[in-house]
């Protein structure tokens, strides 16, 4: 089994879809939380002058901080998702390529190879068992 994959972006549509599936709910949940906190604090303070003097300056600081850290957080999140999704899309891509080669060559002695840190190892093991059986039947 090989250890490292050079490319992290193996299957763009699927990996971007996985990223979207993680980033969009995270963004919505954070926005909702931000809104809810803002809403309840406003409702608690109630007196407008106090909201202007206490809450709004604090919110301004929070907003500036959010504007500053959101791109960094998004970048880290995207990289993490890409790295982790690669462990799934990578072996699937590998499996597809290896099977394609076996079909083309009709060589059942070939085996599917996954990297050490990849997920779905059992899929490779079972595919290889199937190939072993096919190889034995063909003899």
């Amino acid at each position, binding site marked *: 089994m090989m250890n490292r994959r050079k490319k992290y972006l193996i299957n763009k549509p699927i990996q971007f879809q996985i990223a979207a599936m993680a980033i969009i709910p995270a963004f919505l949940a954070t926005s909702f939380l931000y809104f809810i906190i803002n809403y309840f604090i406003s*409702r608690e303070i109630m007196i*407008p002058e106090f909201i202007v003097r206490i809450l709004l300056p604090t919110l301004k600081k929070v907003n500036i901080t959010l504007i500053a850290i959101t791109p960094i957080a998004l970048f880290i999140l995207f990289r993490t998702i890409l790295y982790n999704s690669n462990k799934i899309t990578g072996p699937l891509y590998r499996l597809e390529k290896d099977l394609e080669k076996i079909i083309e060559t009709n060589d059942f002695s070939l085996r599917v190879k996954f990297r050490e840190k990849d997920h779905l190892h059992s899929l490779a093991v079972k595919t290889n068992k199937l190939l072993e059986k096919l190889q034995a039947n063909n003899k």
Partner: protein
Amino acid sequence: MLKVFKPSLFAITGLLLFYSFAFSGEFLLKQFLFDDQKDLNSWKEMVLDGKVDYFIEIKDENGFVHALSENACSAIYHRVGYKPVNFPVLTWKWSVLKFPEKDPANPVDDYAARIYAIFPSISFSTSKFIEYIWAEDLPEGHIQQSPSAKNIMQIVVRSGRDNAGKWFEEKRNIYDDYELVFGKKAKTSVGAIAIMCNSNITKSTAECLVDNIKIEKLSEPGTESPGTGSQEVQSDNDE
């Protein structure tokens, strides 16, 4: 069979209760008499810049809120929740004992007495606030935007220092006032009524009394509409 109908029965009973309340002929929605020391327990205090002393004072069995601000700014509010179109009239009695010491050349947002009608919305910027103020330096009927934000409008309902110590009853149609100051009809509910006495900007002392806040319908059946107005009242509270 009963199991099937149980939720529906609850829903129908709830709806009936809601409609019976919403469409009842009740004239008075809420009244704050402040005749008991515990009457301020349901009011919440918010402190901005030093605590104003809000307490119930009882004179000849008649109580009222006494607010004393010494270089302070805090307010008390009571949560309500009603459509102003249904109960547009806000009535209260007030008296100012001491005005903050303002420089006439530099009017600031310190008022001995103000009553708020708060229309909260999903965010502060979409919320609306009407402040009825007793301003010693502005004419009665004067409407101005608060220096704090454009969604806070101040209406001067009483003016001048001459009437210090006298009790006045004010009656405002907050539904009409909302349209007057914001240029559109109030669609959101009134979320709270508040009282504030502050003197923190002028670093002086202000003192006011507030009594008998009422939220009611426009007119009692069979009576003339009171509309908006104010009058001096002879009160046992007179100092």
